[in-house]
């Protein structure tokens, strides 16, 4: 069963990855965005990890809600707000629980991603973070057995191929949409963020 400290460990791993990939994400975003992606993800996940490490809240829902606010304050960009919605969706799904099983984590991921799609009015195939998050979540839900580590690895793998697939897509959302057909051939920064999240969590899975 997962507890708050497992989430805190995973968030710390993600924050570490974002810090290491800050310049990579900035460069990627400069191709057809405004270049702040690396900065906002670095500060957002840094704040998330910080909040998670300090929090004495044991209810997973309240813990995630509090830390999603910390993330949102530190990363108020569109993608930052979208990721916050994911955390809020997970928080509502885990409200009242102090531990989470693999199934409950899967349900929380599903709730988080559904809330993102609802609020952003977006779906996979539109060259966004959803193109890595949705395949990752699907792989996690479809993963048989109780081996959390193996399921997280399957999710990370699906996130990576999902992100790679955005290269062939045309942007329809945000500033990148102004580039239209010129966005084809370029990796989506948001989808890469999704890949980095799941890859970091899979690595954190070794500790959990």
């Amino acid at each position, binding site marked *: 069963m997962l507890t708050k400290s497992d989430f805190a460990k995973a968030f710390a791993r993600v924050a570490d990855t974002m810090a290491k990939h800050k310049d990579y994400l900035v460069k990627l975003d400069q191709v057809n965005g405004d270049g702040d992606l690396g900065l906002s993800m670095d500060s957002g996940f840094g704040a998330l990890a910080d909040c998670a490490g300090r929090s004495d809240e044991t209810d997973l*829902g*309240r813990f995630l*809600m509090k830390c999603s606010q910390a993330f*949102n*304050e530190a990363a108020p960009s569109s993608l930052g*707000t979208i990721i916050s*919605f994911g955390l*809020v969706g997970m928080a509502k799904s885990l409200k009242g629980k102090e531990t989470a099983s693999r199934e409950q984590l899967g349900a929380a991921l599903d709730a988080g991603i559904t*809330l993102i799609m609802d*609020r952003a009015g977006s779906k996979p195939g539109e060259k966004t973070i959803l193109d890595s998050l949705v395949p990752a979540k699907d792989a996690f839900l479809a993963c048989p057995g109780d081996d959390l580590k193996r399921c997280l690895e399957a999710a990370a793998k699906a996130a990576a191929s999902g992100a790679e697939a955005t290269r062939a897509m045309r942007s329809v959302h945000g500033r990148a949409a102004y580039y239209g057909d010129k966005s084809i051939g370029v990796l989506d920064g948001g989808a890469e963020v999704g890949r980095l999240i799941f890859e970091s969590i899979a690595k954190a899975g070794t500790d959990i």
Partner: protein
Amino acid sequence: MKKIMNKASDFARETVEGIALAHAGRVAMLNDDPQILINAQPVKEGKVGIVTGGGSGHLPVFLGYVGNGMLDGCAIGNVFASPSASKMEAMIRAVDKGSGVLLLYGNYGGDNLNFDMAAEMVDMDDIKTATVRVADDVASAPNDKRNKRRGVAGMVYAFKIAGAAAAKGHDLETVQRAAQKTCDNMRTIGFALSPCIVPEVGSPTFTIEDNIVEVGMGIHGEAGIDTAPMMTADEMADLALEKIESDLELNEGDRVSVMVNGLGATPLEEQYIVFRAIARRLQNRGIDLYMPHVGEFATSMEMAGLSVTILKLDDELAGWLRAPALTPFYTSENK
């Protein structure tokens, strides 16, 4: 740039602090936070709360309508920038009296996302919210995409009418319906003559040529539908009615409230000249005028120009519009 201020980065905060000082006892910052202004007067237990929010630079919108008979709270961002979801959340928690809170604000991307987020956050603690987004600017999208339109001066009517419904003791669903019904029956069109300056930018972010009117420009300088050579007040009135009526039918026997709203640098004299023209045209067609609103309601700092809003009333809406309201920037008594 000539602006009377201290540091540009303090512009929004010092404005709110000034308002809290000038209208002490009527409004107050929540826990001394200059990004959240709430009604400081006693509010009946069980009254549905109504809150709004948005960037600075539009006074009296948004915070000027916090007070009895209108809004319970307003979250305030920097100039032309949305306040954060956590400010909105703190405000919603502060004004909830157990009957839920209506989130009533202009339809802009940042505000929409942040208010949605705040609604999710308070939902964790079972605080009920409902949302109405004001989208009255006819110039910002065609009629079949009305939910894409921007919210401009007409939002003051929505604040007034929803506020009256809440003060009467109606439940959240009814207050939401009152606000939505107002939005469905009103349209606005703006005319800009000169640009405005965002303090932290320091120079106009767009230009308007001399002798040119931007027809349909938004209150942040968003592009309009057309540019036209400078026109007379009567011609402006004709054009305003044409644009509004291509979207909202007006017939003999209808009763309407007309708002002529100065954008910041246009004298009241000019606003009344345009109002005169619109009033005469409507009266000649047998349309009744009810509680006209002339003056500055939603501005864009030093932008010159004005907007015209028409709200079609039935007895229910007229009753709520007539109900008493008093805030630092609004009174129902002189209308």
